[in-house]
């Protein structure tokens, strides 16, 4: 089980038109089932790292190996497919498509990936049933399922997004400050639910936040500004 799920070596990424790299990581490994808390000030390259892991960005140098697949060797469409199959994303705010129902927002993850659809159908008869099951796990059900997603509270919206991220058991979940819009009580309740879902599915969790108080919930902590050489170089000595 101690196989590296993410293995980054000598990775360097610069935005187009900029000479100085934005991200420069010599080495970063995450093992299967780890709960990793990634923190760092803004500008330390968090969004860039997530873009690279998600395959929407391509590094100029180095290797980024996810689940044994070298992302930098894939074509863009293959990386999109890889992301759909293996990674569930969760963002800070506005995670939901406004014109889809609660259930349809969750089902969406299974519609872009045959692999996740197949795995969802292993535990429920239909994608819809699996979505409803996961939503119930996250304390969402009943009349709420038929509501417009824009009528939900922020906490409810984030739980719907979490259900979508875990649908079809992706190996990795990447959460980008998903609790920053919640108050303290709801933060910890949401985090408990998310961690519970990850445990149930054996999912590796990368959790990005600048709120260091949350670090206690995780098995490991990475300070991105410590890993990112280019960020260190840019700071006044």
């Amino acid at each position, binding site marked *: 089980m101690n196989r590296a799920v993410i293995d980054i070596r000598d990775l360097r990424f610069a935005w187009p038109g900029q000479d100085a790299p934005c991200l420069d990581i010599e080495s970063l490994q995450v093992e299967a089932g780890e709960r990793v808390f990634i923190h760092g000030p803004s500008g330390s390259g968090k969004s860039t790292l997530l873009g690279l892991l998600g395959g929407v960005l391509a590094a100029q140098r180095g290797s980024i190996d996810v689940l044994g697949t070298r992302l930098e060797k894939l074509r863009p469409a293959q990386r999109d497919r890889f992301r*759909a199959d293996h990674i569930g994303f969760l963002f800070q705010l506005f995670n939901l498509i406004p014109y889809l129902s609660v259930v349809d927002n969750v089902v969406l993850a299974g519609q872009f990936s045959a692999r996740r659809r197949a795995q969802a159908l292993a535990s429920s008869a239909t994608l819809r049933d699996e979505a409803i099951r996961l939503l119930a796990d996250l304390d969402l059900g009943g009349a709420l399922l038929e509501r417009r997603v824009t009528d939900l509270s922020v906490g409810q919206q984030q739980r719907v997004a979490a259900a979508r991220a875990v649908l079809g058991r992706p190996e990795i979940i990447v959460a980008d400050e998903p609790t920053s819009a919640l108050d303290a009580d709801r933060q910890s309740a949401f985090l408990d639910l998310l961690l519970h879902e990850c445990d149930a599915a054996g999912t590796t969790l990368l959790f990005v936040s600048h709120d260091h108080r949350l670090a206690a919930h995780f098995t490991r902590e990475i300070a991105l500004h410590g890993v990112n050489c280019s960020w260190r170089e840019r700071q006044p000595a």
Partner: protein
Amino acid sequence: MTHLPGLALRSAWNRRHTLGLTLIAIALSVALLLGVDRVRQDARASFGQSVSGTDLVVGARTSPVQLMLYAVFRIGEATANMSWAGYEKISAHPLVAWAVPLALGDSHRGYSVVGTTRDYFDRFSYGAGKKLAYAQGEAFSTVFEAVIGADVAQRLGYRAGDRIVLNHGAGDVDLAEHSDKPFIVTGVLSRTGTPVDRSVHVPLEAIEAIHLDWQGGAPIPGVAIAPEHVTKFDLRPKAITAMLVGLKNRAGVFRVQRHVNELKDEALVAVLPAVALDQLWQVVGVAERVLLAVSAMVVAVGLAGLVAVVLAGLNERRRELAILRSVGARPRDIFFLLTLEAMGVTVVGALLGVMLLAALTALFAPLAASQYGLVLEPRLIARSELALLAAAVGVGILASLIPGYRAYRLSLADGLTPRL
């Protein structure tokens, strides 16, 4: 990616108010474009149907188009008459099988009055050689009798046996009346879809009779000739407006035409109806093309509006596109989604336009037929219109690529985190 059309549909439904207005604009513009073409086609068809079996139309020398317009279509007025002697001379030509005189200029409540002979009802044919038939009654036999067309009977509520009074001159208001000499309707013709429907036919002698006590377009003061006395006068016409000529053999049409055009004692012109119509279409064609070009531009404006609406909405949807990207949508899926939306609006708008036009044609066909003699053929779409429709939809589909491409670029640049 079979779920993408469903997604596009729900996204479009979410913005149904703005897209709905765009849809209406496209439907109206497509209906306009096809409508212009349809009226053009049907106008040609119904003009072409108006006269058949007549080999030549003869009148005082003028342009062939003008002669056709006033002699056959009752549009405009003759500038000069032809003499009765000329009529008799042409009728006597060995190649001429029949000739029907037409004396125009008077009217009845806006409908033109045609002074002619009984031969008119036997000789005149329209469409594919169809003859005139009576819905009621029969042809006139004495001087103050009239045969009316189907529209005249319908709009004015006349039946055989009714009495009518003719007006001097053409038009609808404030005309001097020939009220001292009323006419009895002896027959009502069946509908033909030609100017005959909008005509009142009286004997040629009647035109002479009602003008016996007139001079220079007004009654002669102190002179009144009662109807019962008119037969004492010589009612043979001195002049007529035009004549329709049928030949024994169509091959001789150019010989007779030359004969008429070269008559020494009177400046006359003989016109082949089909040739005159062709000339008419050449004149009208310029206006038709301008109308068609303008309506094509209206379609372009409608499509530009669509592209603008979709593009304007794109910025608010960057978050939505990023979410789709995060669950695995490729940039080309985003391209497909946005293109599909604009395309869908174009196609549905065009189909709505076709149905709107069909409804409007059906609704206004009776009015167009009775008021303008324009027979609108009820149909959903004609083959020639299909090409126009395909062109409009084709341009719309090409235009739909613009928002698709823009969204593609945006989703590539934004990735999972739109910079708003």
